[in-house]
């Protein structure tokens, strides 16, 4: 189907949403995609899905508006049309869009993620116990601050509503995350999501690499040989990405944090969370953790560490 006025193709479904709560493997997967779809090399500052849902420059270019002068509700009401338009002018068969927003509706009661141009979504999930420390490192904030955000049912990234009104000057548009559980539920356990969603566990990306990456590539319709998948996995190895950041920097790093790529492991929470922090996350997110195969830790069996004294245990 072509629009009569512009000749743009609105019919083809080509957006693959790379959706996740922050620090859950999204960037790693984009590195894999970059290697898989390109010549096997990765420049972390020029990756596939550099199209980001909350990008102010994409919004402004599609609307000829200065989005800093729009209200957040006005922006959210335009976003479905913005990405329908962006998809219509994309010349490639797939348009990968990174998104940290929860799957929610705007004040027009329309989903902010448009159905029409959407092919499918990959949803990256990681144990909230590990997300907390990684997220704190990423924003140079404390683990308690990040846990408070993860537990907040109205949590947002890039908050713009201040006491004097909306201050909308950051590089990114405000992103409504909900709580960690709310985010997971909105994308993976929501009958209103009208397109296929594949859940990809960060821990499986680490431990079941070939099958996990291979299944994801197949789900989004990329016909690749096992050798091509393996090469792309090797090229996007965590240590290689970290090394590139050390050498050249990474534009998506929060200026306040030391680095974007930290340890790239799972289970780090055992060494950095206090008992109170663990209990807080489990109390708030136990149901979703169990649904996606994350064991609820037995506090009594945890080893003592510098954050967790024997007295606490």
């Amino acid at each position, binding site marked *: 189907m072509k629009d009569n006025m512009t000749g743009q193709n609105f019919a083809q479904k080509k957006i693959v949403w790379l959706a996740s709560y922050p620090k859950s493997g999204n960037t790693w997967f984009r590195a894999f995609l970059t290697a898989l779809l390109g010549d096997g090399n990765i420049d972390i500052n020029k990756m596939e899905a550099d199209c980001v849902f909350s990008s102010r420059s994409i919004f402004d270019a599609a609307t000829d*508006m200065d989005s800093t*002068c729009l209200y957040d509700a006005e922006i959210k009401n335009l976003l479905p049309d913005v990405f329908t338009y962006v998809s219509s002018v994309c010349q490639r068969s797939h348009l990968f869009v990174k998104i940290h927003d929860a799957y929610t509706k705007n004040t027009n009661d329309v989903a902010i993620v448009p159905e029409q141009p959407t092919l499918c979504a990959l949803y990256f999930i990681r144990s909230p116990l590990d997300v907390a420390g990684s997220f704190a490192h990423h924003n140079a904030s404390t683990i308690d601050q990040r846990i408070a955000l993860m537990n907040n049912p109205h949590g947002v990234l890039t908050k713009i509503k201040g006491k004097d*009104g909306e201050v909308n000057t950051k590089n990114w548009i405000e992103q409504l995350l909900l709580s960690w559980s709310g985010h997971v539920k909105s994308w993976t356990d929501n009958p209103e999501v009208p397109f296929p969603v594949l859940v990809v566990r960060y821990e499986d990306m680490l431990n079941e690499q070939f099958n996990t990456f291979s299944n994801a590539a197949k789900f989004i319709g990329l016909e690749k040989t096992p050798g091509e998948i393996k090469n792309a996995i090797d090229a996007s190895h965590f240590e290689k990405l970290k090394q590139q950041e050390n050498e050249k920097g990474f534009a998506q790093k929060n200026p306040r944090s030391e680095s974007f790529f930290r340890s790239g492991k799972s289970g780090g929470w055992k060494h950095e969370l206090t008992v109170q922090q663990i209990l807080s996350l489990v109390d708030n997110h136990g149901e979703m953790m169990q649904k996606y195969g994350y064991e609820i830790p037995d506090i009594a069996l945890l080893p003592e560490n510098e954050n967790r004294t024997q007295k606490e245990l």
Partner: protein
Amino acid sequence: MYNYWGFGLNIASEIEFPEFLPADFDSPDITISKGNSPRQLSGDDVMQKVNVSMSSKEYLQNVVNVAYYYVANGNEICIQPHEGADEKSIRFFALSNAMAAVLHQRNNILLHASGVYYNAGVVLFCGHTGAGKSTVVTMLQQKGYKVFSDDVCVLKTADNNSKTTMAIPSYPMINLWADSFAKIGLEPPDNNTRLRPNLAKFGRFYHDNYETASTPIKRVFILNAYSQARQVEIKKLGTIEAFSALQQNTYSYVQINGMKKKAHHFMATSKLAAGVQVYLVNRIPGENTLNEVIALIEANLRDER
């Protein structure tokens, strides 16, 4: 009908714009009217985006819950407000999108820049919204500099072979975010001066100390708020880098593209890059480095006078 001067143009308007400078003239360059706007543009050369479409002669923007803005032939802006729209928002998008469109239709190029008078010319501060243009200019105003323009100015390339590019100011108002008032040491803003009802951005008039004459551009500073810099720094850009930076800081590349003004854009920015010194000022994101930025800029101006 209200008669004004703004962006170098004599403007006759059915809508009152306190932001513009009142003026006397016999015939206007452009008219602003309230009326019925078309709902779509037609023609082979129309570029259609989200709620906005444009060609070389026409521009149509629908700002939802605010107004339709129809701009044509470089001399006509027609505004059709949506029901219940507030007047401030209606004026706000007329002063930004619609005025930019009418100026582009007249083959003008706009620089996203604020400026102060200096050394028989003007010094401009470019940058995207939030880079600190208005804050720097207000701070310099507090230190005794006279403000030339805020947020945007019109580039005027002389017809002769002179290397000089002139700038024309927009209108006598500085747009400041709420947090800038405290940073600069100003009293908190009056609620009546909000640019839009729910936006923490306020207008500061300076009609009493305003000049409309086009003025030679002496130097350009590009303010970069998103650098990975660990300290405030200033560095001179080569001509190619300066050209690239100026291109990125022209106002509304979407309009330049959609209205087929790329040749004018190239001419204006290449001439400016070749004719003036352009400096990049890297700020530290998230930190109040205003005093350091001002000190570096003033030292730069003193050193290379």
